[in-house]
């Protein structure tokens, strides 16, 4: 495989949301400019915090607004030539709905053609922006209702960071939304930064100690350091890819890494351990950890090679995000926000070291790697964060998982950026909430003799990976030029999968009742690679198991 192949797998489409609507820059906060077309009336404007927005209202408007929040966009330009993100320029262009792939707007079209209005903002600032995102959305809902008084219901949905904004909006303003659908929802910034940051720290510590990995300088110097880190990170990822089959270590490896290499530790085992420590999925866009090429590697490949390649693909996403988010958060908080001085990486992999023992090359190798990464090894210095910066980061608006309005969650079971465990945390929180609500109903029954069970307000949909999907050339080499498999990559949903959520969201938002039973089962089956298995319970992010 060539280096460019892995880079091509990066799921930038969802992370760096595409722009679909061009808007004038001179729009006024309280006075959206509408084109007045009868089929779809398109309005544009900016909120009081200078966030551009767009509203699209069909002629047969049924009274329900579907408000969308886009995902994370870096808040700095990324110079051309840097893999994955090269050529990105900061944009706050408004986005009224999810885009499938590069440009498929069929989900938005579906909503409009069925009488739903859509709206979305580009937000006032990019980067991690939950506080401003919620404020913008609150204002946008008011602007929409003022402009379109026939509005009866408002439902909200969003991807990734937009899922966080959506859930936070529902928790802080349940009176403003009738239903929400946070999709591929990110966890708290602490949990996200822990996962991505741990992987980046591991790559720096073993494979290229010249990667700064955070604690960037202020201003232009820090920007240059972060961009330099992106280049180095992707370079070392390419070298790791080249050494997967042989176990060779990158020539940029640290003294600690070189000592491990000299001891016979394959680089792929080190890479896999870093991914497992961070909690990254062991299935990725092209590697299912199940399939092997015909011949001698039929079993060896999925057992010993494929998990490392999956971590390579997923880690490329996670590590790059770590650099960009860390740079952003450090600018927001005034100091280093990643700190792993107290992290016990051995405890993180108690089960994983058994399950992936063969790929990790056995307990002796695992113990050598964990020993090399321990705080006792001066050759693996831990990252020390700024307590004030971390406190400031922790004070940023997030969500608790409390559910007051009907909610639909959807996430890929092998999403490397917003792991399914983030969604599971909300589901767990709701399970406890529902138990309390039920307990109250039971307690009240003694007084009222009326038993009305509380409504279950949560539907969780898992976007699952196919039974097997790694493909091979006739020579036995894995093919990585195909589209990412369902359930993998970040927010990698099909239009059909989005439509399941859209139908649920608009139905429960306007009627108060979910689509359920056979009708839901039919929708799920037709959309493919979805599951509503109530017992599926992915592990929480490692931040919560430390």
């Amino acid at each position, binding site marked *: 495989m060539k280096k460019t192949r892995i880079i091509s797998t990066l799921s930038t489409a969802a992370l760096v949301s595409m722009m679909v609507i061009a808007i004038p820059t001179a729009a006024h906060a309280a006075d959206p400019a509408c084109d007045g077309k009868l089929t779809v009336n398109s309005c544009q404007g900016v909120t009081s915090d200078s966030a551009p927005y767009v509203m699209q209202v069909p002629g047969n408007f049924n009274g329900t607004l579907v408000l969308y929040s886009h995902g994370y966009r870096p808040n700095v330009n990324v110079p051309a030539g840097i893999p994955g993100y090269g050529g990105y320029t900061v944009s706050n262009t408004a986005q009224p709905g999810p885009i499938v792939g590069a440009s498929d707007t069929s989900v938005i079209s579906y909503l409009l053609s069925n009488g739903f209005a859509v709206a979305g903002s580009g937000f006032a600032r990019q980067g991690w922006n939950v506080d401003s995102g919620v404020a913008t959305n609150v204002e946008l809902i008011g602007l929409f209702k003022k402009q379109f008084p026939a509005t009866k219901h408002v439902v909200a949905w969003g991807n990734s960071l937009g899922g966080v904004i959506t859930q936070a909006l529902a928790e802080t303003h349940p009176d403003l939304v009738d239903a929400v659908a946070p999709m591929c929802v990110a966890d708290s910034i602490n949990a996200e930064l822990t996962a991505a940051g741990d992987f980046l720290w591991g790559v720096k510590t073993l494979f290229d100690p010249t990667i700064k990995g955070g604690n960037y300088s202020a201003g232009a110097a820090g920007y240059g350091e972060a961009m330099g880190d992106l280049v180095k990170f992707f370079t070392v990822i390419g070298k790791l890819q080249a050494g997967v089959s042989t176990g060779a270590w990158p020539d940029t490896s640290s003294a600690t890494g070189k000592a491990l290499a000299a001891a016979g530790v394959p680089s792929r085992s080190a890479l896999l351990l870093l991914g497992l420590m961070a909690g990254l999925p*062991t*299935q990725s866009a092209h590697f*299912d*950890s*199940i399939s092997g090429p015909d011949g001698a590697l*039929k*079993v*060896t490949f*999925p*057992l*010993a090679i494929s*998990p490392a390649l999956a971590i390579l693909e997923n880690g490329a996403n996670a590590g790059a995000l770590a650099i960009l988010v860390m740079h952003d958060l450090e600018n927001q908080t005034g100091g280093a926000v990643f700190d792993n001085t107290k992290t016990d990486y051995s405890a993180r992999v108690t*089960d994983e070291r*058994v*399950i*992936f*023992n*063969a790929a990790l*090359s*056995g*307990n*002796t*190798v695992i113990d050598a790697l964990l020993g090399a990464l321990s705080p006792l090894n001066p050759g693996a210095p831990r990252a020390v964060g700024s307590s004030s910066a971390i406190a400031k980061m922790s004070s940023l608006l997030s969500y608790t998982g409390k559910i007051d309005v*009907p909610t639909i969650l959807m996430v890929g079971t092998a999403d490397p950026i917003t792991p399914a465990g983030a969604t599971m*945390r909300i*589901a*767990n929180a*709701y*399970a*406890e909430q*529902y*138990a*309390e609500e*039920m307990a109250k109903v039971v307690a009240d029954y003694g007084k009222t003799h009326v038993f009305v069970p509380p*409504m*279950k*307000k*949560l*539907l*969780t949909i898992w976007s699952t990976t196919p*039974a*097997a999907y790694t493909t091979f050339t006739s020579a036995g080499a894995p093919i990585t030029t195909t589209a990412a498999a369902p359930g993998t990559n970040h927010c990698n949903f099909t239009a059909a999968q989005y439509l399941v959520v859209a139908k649920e969201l608009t139905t429960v938002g306007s009627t108060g*009742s*979910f689509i*359920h*039973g056979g009708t*839901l089962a039919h929708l799920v089956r037709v959309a493919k690679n979805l*599951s*509503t*298995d*109530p*017992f*599926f*319970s*992915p*592990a*929480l992010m490692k931040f*919560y*198991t*430390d």
Partner: protein
Amino acid sequence: MIGINRRLLVASAVLATSGLVISTVPAQAFSPRAEVGVTATSIKLGVTIPMTGAASPGYNKIPSAMKAYFDYVNANGGVNGRKITLVVKDDQYVPTLAVAKTNELILRDKVFALLGPLGTANIKAVAASVNPARRGIPVLFVNTGYSGFAIKKTYPTTFSLFPSYIMEAKVMAQYIKETFPDKKIGLLYQDDDFGVDALAGFKQAGLTFAVKVPYASGSQGVSGVPATWIQKLSTAGAEVVVLFGVTSATAAALGTAAVMKYGPKWILGSVGGDATTIKALGVPVGVLYGAIGASYLPAPTDTTDDYIKLFQEINAKYNNNAVFDNNVLVGMNGAFVAVQAIAAAGAKPTRKALIAAIEKKGSTFFGAGLAPLNYSATNHGGYNGYWFGTYSPTGEMKPNGGAYTVYTTDSGTGAVVKSTYKRPAMPANGLPIK
């Protein structure tokens, strides 16, 4: 796990069992319903096991042996009138595939319970990802001796059948100390939880080694690697070598040692000495000659044993007269015990009732095993003892001293003692249930 407390688990269970999918509960939901995988005439079980691939030789004979015994039971009326079916999924010994196949068994095939999944890593992967415990699905009589699966708190719906590897190491240590008190002892072991259990047992028993050689699972098939093991053992002057690994590692080690003219007294763990598997791997079974082995089951060639005799008859009629080896015996014995568990779950078996029945009555179950079963409300461990034998030139293991002398112990600090357990005779009709 931080943030997950008992209250939450209970709440999760309530939500899960009532269905997170929002729906009005139909009135008929309150009327008695049959358990998943159970009809008036059938009970469906499922197993994931390596049927193809490098790890499959030997293990791939277990499902057909289980099926053969179930066919025999079915032909004799079934269990409470229900015929048992077994859905077999090939996991190739790959954990991620085991997860996928187990999901299929549960969600698509809708099995009542899992029976006899094989491999510590696979079962742990399934426990973590599929979570049978959260679903209340019994995982019966796993084909591994990893001690952790007997711990109810960690794996509340899982039951072991093999004695634990810790027990095996403890019993083996006592045997070695008594039999080879002045010899230099070497250890070749699989470098995962299998080996961790072994090391714990040897340490508990106070056995020390002159040399310990770990091997990563799968490396036995890598050209040149087994030679490095033999070199290390030989250089250390090990006169007695304990091999705590799978049969493919035994084949590689003994075959390579023969080539390198290294001839210690080999002592093989219970899962590493199947002669037909060694033969299938292309290594002459003669390499086993003189080695010591351990087992909790009678020798599969021992036709004086009434269990072996009946199982061989069933094998001939229902299993295409497959070569009757230890894997066939393990399969049939697992099915034999499973039939008792299902019967004990009552006329209208549920998953919950099945688990409760094993906890309550499991210590009275019996089978070909020469040690007792130890199930209780707090212990999900099965057999607890071993006997030792010596391999013949044709790979048959004959009990040392001419009779099975079984030693039992536990996975903790308990002593190794000579067993007084008297195994019930095989019922005349071959059925352990009425």
